[in-house]
């Protein structure tokens, strides 16, 4: 049931990418899509009444959440940061060449 939240967020990202005409709004949509997938992985990792998977001195392991998706999501966040930086750099280049962020007005990309 709680997974439904991340699916809604994913749909918002897809909608933002497909319908918006501004390049910056498309980049924001891609970022929202990223975060929706990260949230989905974190929700998969949760166990009922689980605590964080960190050993401390004198503590015993009873119920912990799954630490593997956390490690995967950490890598995913780094990759998302790099992809966003690449997209922003490309957007700056497009703005300096065409003088607009509107993808309808960039005629030379067509055909």
């Amino acid at each position: 049931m709680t997974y439904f939240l991340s699916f809604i967020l994913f749909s918002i990202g897809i909608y933002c990418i497909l319908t918006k005409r501004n390049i910056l709004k498309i980049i924001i949509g891609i970022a929202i899509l990223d975060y929706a997938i990260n949230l989905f992985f974190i929700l998969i990792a949760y166990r009922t009444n689980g605590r964080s998977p960190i050993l401390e001195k004198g503590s015993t392991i009873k119920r912990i959440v799954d630490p593997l998706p956390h490690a995967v999501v950490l890598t995913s966040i780094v990759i998302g940061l790099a992809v966003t930086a690449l997209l922003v750099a490309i957007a700056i280049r497009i703005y300096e060449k065409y003088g607009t962020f509107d993808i309808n007005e960039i005629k030379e990309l067509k055909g």
Partner: protein
Amino acid sequence: MKEHKVKNNNKTAGMSIIVKTITRLTIGLILLYGIYILLHGHLTPGGGFAGGVIITLSFIHIMLAFGKDVAFQKLNKSWSKIFESTGALLFLTIAVLGFLGGSFFTNFMDKGEPFEFLSAGTIILSNIAIFLKVGAGLFLLFIMLVFFKIGGKK
């Protein structure tokens, strides 16, 4: 002393005097917190990536408050390129040195007592390598995006 003189000369660069004073007070705390997160990555949450981001944010903080000249005195562009490459090479070296203990990424150093500071073998060194890579890379990313100019090549 030298930096102090530069700060006085560039009174117009950067933000207002309130922001500069607050930055001068908080910048050391941010840097210390980042170093703590970095060095305790094997005991508490955090590690190389989070520590590198926090330490780089302190440098970006200097750049936003005082202007780019003061920030480039502390960390140059060419030096950050060297740090980034050093981080990647150091991480690869640690991974290849694992062949001393058997296979790739083997923890060949002394493990020590659990929950002590020097306890995890190569994890601390790997965290420092990741810190160099991520911190210098993020700083380069920031200055490339801020001072982006097309240098006459089309």
